[in-house]
């Protein structure tokens, strides 16, 4: 049932250092992080900026190598694979990035954008251009857009539509695992709700596994069955959503939950102070 195992992942960076001494500081981006992800589930990875959550996603996507530790995807240890085999795995692990404005090449039409992963993995998929175009049309329908949107360019779409294009691209090669890197944090709340419900519908329909990276606990709670809290590279809590919210075990968890914005003015901490 486990689709992804992250075992003792550690990653250090050395900064470029000062102007004169040249010695860089070592920054611990990830420190001995381990967790499992079950097939068909959504797991939230929550942390603030600099927590190491982005490094984690880059390592899982194969964009960076860990210093130590390993990642086992569907029974295969990714570190033992050749470059070619790793490329093939790429088709099964896809990503949707936070910023729908920066993650789509402005010079490519929607058709070319969504077709790209299929063209890259043509050797595995063996699709002709016409088949790819058909699949693009199918994917656009799947993310509730129009087929003839494929001839337009990204700048003609709103943030929410661009994010749908990003999701269609991620789905193109029928992946099993999708890393969602803050996919809704740049969107307006009403659009965010639509994108989330699309993601949920797709997950149920296609039996996808989501790795949902976010700083927004409310969204994680909405989408995920469990969550991992990361702080300064260390895993501080790994719990099912209900127990995380009912009884957080770590101080960090309590702090994050306490800082969640609440739309009830009567629960504002400083208002109480100022009106007292």
């Amino acid at each position: 049932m486990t689709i992804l195992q992250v075992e003792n992942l550690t990653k250090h960076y050395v900064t470029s250092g000062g102007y004169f001494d040249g010695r860089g500081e070592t920054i611990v981006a990830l420190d001995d992080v381990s967790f499992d992800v079950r097939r068909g589930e959504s797991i939230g990875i929550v942390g603030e900026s600099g927590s190491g959550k982005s490094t984690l996603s880059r390592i899982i996507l194969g964009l960076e190598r860990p210093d130590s530790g390993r990642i086992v995807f569907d029974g295969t240890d990714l570190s033992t694979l050749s470059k070619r085999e790793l490329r093939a795995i790429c088709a099964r692990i896809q990503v949707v990035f936070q910023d729908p404005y920066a993650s789509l090449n402005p010079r490519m039409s929607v058709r070319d954008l969504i077709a790209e992963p299929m063209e890259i993995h043509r050797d595995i998929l063996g699709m002709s251009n016409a088949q790819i175009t058909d699949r693009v049309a199918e994917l656009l329908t799947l993310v509730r857009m129009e087929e003839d949107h494929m001839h337009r360019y990204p700048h003609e779409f709103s943030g929410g539509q661009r994010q749908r294009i990003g999701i269609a691209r991620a789905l193109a090669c029928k992946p099993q695992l999708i890393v969602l890197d803050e996919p809704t944090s740049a969107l307006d709340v009403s659009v965010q709700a639509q994108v989330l419900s699309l993601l949920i519908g797709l997950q149920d329909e296609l039996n996808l596994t989501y790795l949902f990276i976010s700083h927004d606990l409310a969204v994680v709670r909405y989408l995920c069955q469990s969550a991992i809290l990361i702080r300064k590279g260390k895993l501080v809590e790994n719990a099912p959503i209900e127990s995380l919210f009912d009884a957080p075990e770590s101080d960090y968890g309590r702090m994050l939950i306490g800082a969640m914005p609440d739309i009830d003015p009567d629960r504002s901490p400083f208002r109480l102070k100022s009106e007292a």
Partner: protein
Amino acid sequence: MSEVVQSTGSAATRSARRTNWARGFYRFRQNPLSVVGLVIVVLLLLLALFGEYIAPYPEHLNGELNVANRFQPPSAEFWFGTNEVGQDIFSLVLAGARISLLSGIAVIVVATLIGTFIGVIAGYFGSWLDEVLMRFTDLVLTLPALILAMAIAAGLGPSIPNMILALALAWWPGFARMARGEVLSTKAELYVLAAKAQGGGNTRILTRHILPNITSPIIVKMSLDVGFAILAVASLGFIGIGVRPPTPEWGVMLSVSRSNLPHFWWTAIFPGMAIFLSVLSFNFMGDGLRDVFDPRARR
């Protein structure tokens, strides 16, 4: 099914492209100077192509002299006056557009090809390749371009193709540095990361993602530089390397007219104006192109 999608598709893509062009031209039009620049550039290019056919005294272009009419001031008969051998300066300036403009453009095209190639390789692959290529670029850049071009032209012998090559060899470092910088910033774009995350290889990332996104600044620089290249061609002509008299070229004409100043001012003013106008118009056009490609740079 796919047939239908394909055919309606290309029409839809075409119309999407058309809107993009219209949008671009709208931004270009926002600055009247850009439009002036574009109009003059188009006129100059037409002159470069057809100048010798509309010249009132085509025989003067082949070196025919008319000593009886030497140093005629501008008149209805000779719009820009005549030079020391009685040739019509208007005809010579018209014909000079071809050599000045086309060699200016050729210099920049060759320099862009060399520079972009080196800059893209250096910026994309980085590490030692970047070091080696960029130190070499810096080395070429430290030599004064005109002196270097003079040395190369002198070595190759005076001819128009040699002059173009010489200037291009002195000109490419600017393009290399710029292309490298653009590649470095484009390389960090999220869509490049997205392509890598999908398993895209270097060739695909370079040709599909990086090159299309760095062409705009390069085109802008090209159009700005063409003006200066025309000036450089004229300068080489002026100091006697490159184009030789009696070939009508603006720099050469200026050079010859030096000894006629200040009394026969028209022999120098009109070729000078032509150089001035073309440098200025390419610059205005370049500014307009920048507005099109990067609307944030200016209001």
